[in-house]
């Protein structure tokens, strides 16, 4: 009795959906058996800013053309001591044992420094392999952040804000929101061995952005929940085909939920991920020469080497943002042995990653970021330690879009305070987004009545480092 006149008319949307499904139908099953590796979705140019509703993860062109397509972040959790590694301070070496400005006893590095490369960059003996790559690096030596506590600083490094009450999206999630992902068969944002505390999942979360943009956590043996099929691929394919047949039946009904196409796609992607992700993360198939170059070995000592190799493979496959992590840099004590151990774990793999990326031509469109949530003080803490320093510390970049063999900013003569080229965390974020072709002031998301940004209301792009 209440039926509208239009009932006999075909709904244009329903037809579109059916047509789409028909087109997609041809691919089911076929797609699953087709090559599961290296299938990169074509770039679809879209004038509309922000992700489309139907395809939130479709790759989107950057706002302006840039070289960098993806980022690998090597996170040194716990705050590595810069004055024993990347930041040589001759004055500190001379004034060992004297009272430092503002109190405390200056303590020189116990490690030998020497100059390397065409640039003559000073580097400590802890990084013999990285010494061969100093001319590729672009140092940011004047960083500073807001909170000298690891938890807040780690969260701030990852989300732009240390404010505990309102969790912000992580920088990888912002990148996904702004750029989508290159490979539709893989998660676009993967974090390996993220810290379990210091905010935990906040550091790769989507917060109020849609869930598509959250990071996927795996460990250095390649574990992802629910990824392992519990039956053979052929039997599972049968089951998926049945599910998809039911889904298509439902989708063909009048008034079916708009999301059904998304559901259908999600099964196909899930199936592909099951086949592809374990293979992608299985570094054992790499030639021995590559494994040796990275220094892959079993157990915790080889964890970072495995992560570096996984990072290269994931980036190569088109993952937009990969983060890997070396913990244990919080050397309030045991600085000497601790550094030998941690630098030993990171030196060779990091150098191998840079060499590998370069050899594959990937340094042209991949940006590598290396560093900690903050740095350490030139003053001694106890007999063999250094305390936190948020007022001046370095990180480095390498690869797409940044100058090679370049150094931006500086700390004072002892390495306490950034005095030139000062970059706050938000400036780093603004610059990273710019290197990826995004405007940090334009990349906004409206939530709770506000337009949120990774950089909140601050952030300066440091163009001086652009190649």
């Amino acid at each position, binding site marked *: 009795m209440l039926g509208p006149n239009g009932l006999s008319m075909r709904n244009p949307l329903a037809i579109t959906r059916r047509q789409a499904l028909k087109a997609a139908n041809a691919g089911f099953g076929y797609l699953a058996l087709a090559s599961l590796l290296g299938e990169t979705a074509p770039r679809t140019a879209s004038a509309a800013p922000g992700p489309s509703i139907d395809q939130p993860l479709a790759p989107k062109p950057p706002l302006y053309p840039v070289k960098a397509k993806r980022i690998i972040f090597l996170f040194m959790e716990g705050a590595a001591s810069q004055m024993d590694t990347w930041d040589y301070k001759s004055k500190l070496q001379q004034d060992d044992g004297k009272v430092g400005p503002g109190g405390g006893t200056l303590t020189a590095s116990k490690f030998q420094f020497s100059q390397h490369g065409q640039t003559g960059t000073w580097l400590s003996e802890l990084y013999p392999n990285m010494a061969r790559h100093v001319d590729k690096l672009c140092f940011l030596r004047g960083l500073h952040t807001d909170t000298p506590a690891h*938890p807040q600083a780690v969260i701030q490094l990852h989300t732009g804000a240390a404010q*505990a009450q309102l969790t912000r999206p992580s920088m990888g999630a912002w990148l996904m929101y702004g750029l989508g992902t290159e490979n539709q068969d893989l998660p676009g944002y993967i974090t390996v061995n993220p810290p379990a505390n210091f905010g935990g999942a906040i550091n790769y979360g989507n917060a109020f952005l849609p869930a598509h943009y959250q990071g996927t956590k795996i460990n250095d043996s390649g*574990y992802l929940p629910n990824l392992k099929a519990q039956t053979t691929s052929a039997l599972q394919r049968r089951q998926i085909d049945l599910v998809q047949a039911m889904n298509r*039946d439902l989708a063909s009904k009048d008034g079916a939920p708009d999301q059904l196409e998304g559901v259908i796609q999600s099964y196909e992607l899930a199936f592909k991920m099951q086949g592809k992700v374990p293979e992608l993360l299985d570094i054992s198939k790499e030639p021995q020469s590559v494994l040796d170059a990275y220094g892959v070995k079993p157990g915790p000592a080889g964890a970072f080497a495995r992560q570096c190799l996984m990072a290269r493979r994931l980036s190569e496959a088109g993952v937009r943002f990969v983060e890997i992590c070396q913990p244990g840099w919080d050397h309030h004590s045991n600085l000497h042995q601790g550094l030998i151990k941690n630098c030993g774990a990171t030196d060779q793999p990091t150098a191998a990653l840079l060499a590998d990326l370069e050899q594959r031509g990937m340094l042209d469109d991949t940006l590598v970021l290396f560093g900690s949530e903050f740095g350490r003080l030139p003053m001694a803490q106890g007999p063999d330690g250094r305390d936190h320093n948020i007022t001046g510390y370095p990180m480095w970049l390498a690869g797409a879009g940044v100058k090679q063999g370049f150094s931006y900013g500086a700390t004072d003569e002892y390495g306490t305070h950034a005095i030139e080229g000062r970059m706050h965390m938000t400036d780093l974020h603004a610059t990273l987004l710019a290197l990826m072709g995004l405007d940090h002031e334009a990349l906004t998301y409206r939530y709770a009545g506000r337009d949120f940004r990774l950089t909140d209301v601050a952030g300066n792009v440091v163009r001086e480092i652009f190649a």
Partner: protein
Amino acid sequence: MGMLFHEDLSTVLRKPFRLCDPRLLVAITCLKLCSFASAFAVEPAAPHAPAKIEFFEKKIRPLLAENCINCHSAENGGRGGLRVDDRNGMIEGGGRGPGIKPGNPEESLLIKAVRHQGELEMPPKKQLSDEQIADLERWIREGAAWPPIEVPDDLTKPKPEYDKLRQEHWAWQPLAEVTPPQLANESFVINDIDRFIHAKQNEQGLQPVNDADKRSLIRRVTFDLTGLPPSLSEITNFVDDPAPDAFEKVVDRLLKSPAFGERWARHWLDVARYGESTGSARNLPFPHAWRYRDYVIDAFTNDKPYNQFIREQIAGDLLPANSPSEKAEQLIATGFLALGVKDVNQRFKVRFTMDNIDEQIDTVSRSILAVTASCARCHDHKFDPIPTTDYYALAGIFHSSDLCAGVRNKMGGGGLDYYDTAMLLRVGLESKPDAETARKIEEQTKAVAAARAEFEALRGTAEGKVQEPNGQPKQQVAREKLNKAERDLFTLSDPAAYGSVAYGVREGAKIGDTEVRIRGEAEAVGPTVPRGFLGVVSFPGQPQINPQQSGRLELAQWLTSDRNPLTQRVIVNRIWQHLFHQGIVTSVDNFGVNGDRPSHPELLDYLARQFVQSGWSVKKLVRMVVLSHSYRLSAELSAPNFAVDPANRLVWRHSPRRLEAEEIRDAMLVTSGKLNRTRPAASPAKKLRVVEMQNNGGEARNLSEEARLSVYRSLYLPLVRGVVPRALEVFDFAEQGLVTGSRDSTTVPTQALYLLNDPFVRRQALAFAEHVLQPLERGDDERIQQAYQIAFGRSATPTEIERATKYLMEFESAIRDSLAVEVVASAIAPANADHGKPADGSTEEEQVDTKDPKSSAWTSFCQALLGSAEFRYLP
């Protein structure tokens, strides 16, 4: 170098707050506090005389910068919790108590420390000159002068645009007197809701689509009201009931069921950002949070009037109670204010306090009023008429209350350091230790005293250095014994160990107004603002705050006054949203200027009035809405309607929805026959100690394990922040740190992976299959029919039966062919069998075994039903 630090110190004092818009700040001309105009109702603090400030600048500031700031400032974390870059920070002091007492150098810890006469010697390894110490003494004696903080003059400037908005923006206006529109054709109308809906449709030339069929309707209403699928007999009874009030009977049955309370409680828990831990940087459990959860469930089950529900959550401790159990209930209700995210690792108490107050203001204002008041923490709200002074008027109310979340702030620290048993609410009768416990506490207190005496006797002596047989010095052994004795006493005397405790708030030790914090910086104290409410809503006869109390009671009265239209509109809109999947105002948590406009403003006001007249009854409103014709439409599309109103704001059809995470899991447990519908005692989080949890640690693993094996309804799963059960996490569970009025509904591949591979799903599918296979004499057609009935509440079509039969046959023979008899159990492992293991060694990859190929085929089929879109989408 001294100058460098001197500059640092001054920049610290003027550091722009990073959450403010610098473009705004540039536009602000600042004036000194001393020239503050008193036209506004804020009081300036008395400024210090210029000569004293000059003395500070000349003598004290360089001294502090040279000798103290390297360890004691906000920038470096303030060792010992002390900071000297802020006057209040010095007064407040650190872990050893107040640093200075203005006017009284002899009682100032700072002076004792710099004299190097007591236990504390500062600066370490260096003593200040006598002259410097004398300067410090003089400075403190003369009142510890500090330069005034610059107050932006717009703090007090009247804002004509605010007045205009208060008078004009729809949401703040009193409810309109509405009469339902008259319709030329009444055939659509079941109740007044339909008049409003249909009148709008007529205006736009829209025709509502056909009614939903009875099966769809009972499935829809049963999920909407209880979060569970209807049983087969409930479906049949309704389908076969020709009575005109058949649907009404169903609705009344559902409203009475305990499942209604559980389903609707979860909606409120989303809004109340419920979680069982502090979340944030250091995650500490809230083992007693479940009492608040149960309170909310009982409130919805018993249809507690919403105004009373809100009053209890804001000021339950201040309300009269008729019985001890009512008192307990009212105290537990205030858990609403306590269970938010907390950064216990915040070193500075004042920041911890102000951050928590901000969290409370944000939660209260967005959940109850749908205004984003916390924007006004740092500057006047940019869009809505909420000046900073309004924010601090509210802040004063919470500042006058003790937040009892059982935790204290502490930088660093470990173990039970963060646990503060003084900050717990005792509820119930048994709030004293029994005789046995009391005796043990007494004994242990003596043991602690003895251990302390033993330690003190050895401390610093030659004998203390003598080694015990285990190689440790005697002094150290004694210290460890003392530590253990203290720990044991702490555990014994923990009120949670011998009585019921809960989280919430109580009246603070200090009651009074608080100051505006310039740019939101907790230490940058500006003028004091009288406690009060938000100016967006004001009405004659508003409650006046009793100066002797916090003001929460009056805040509760203001929020729940019959004359406060905002509270009513907001809850009515939330209820509407849960039934129609979008609100009359789609931005359910933001009714401000930047929020959405109501699609049916008259209907919203009409419903609000009905709601108040019915005694603020949620059940009556839900009943009225679902009994409307508008609720009973099918989900059919109609091209002409779609062309005009693609988003279905005018309700010309029923928008389909995906089930929420809890509903999906609960429905699976129903199909497997495993669901336990009773309420479990407490929560798995109850047994957690209040120590930091690691997301991959043992406790987290145990919680995940318990969640995976639980057969209770999903709202009873442990909800420790950061350790959300996978069944909830994958399907867009509420963000537990924030007011979440509407959840996402995504279709990410992790959902498909979960449905394909998670042991929980496979276990339910196996039980489902065993149930369907049970009566041996039946044919497969019948079994398929039954499986469809159980999963979807409908029969299978002949095509579906054919497809299922073929699937089962082929699947079974494929297994036999491959000779993998226990194929599911002995699944062919992925190529890299050594990889793909969870690092924490959890059993998430548990195998679910079937006993034979037939069982495997049926399990696979049943799992396909659970994984299909029809299972989790409602038309």
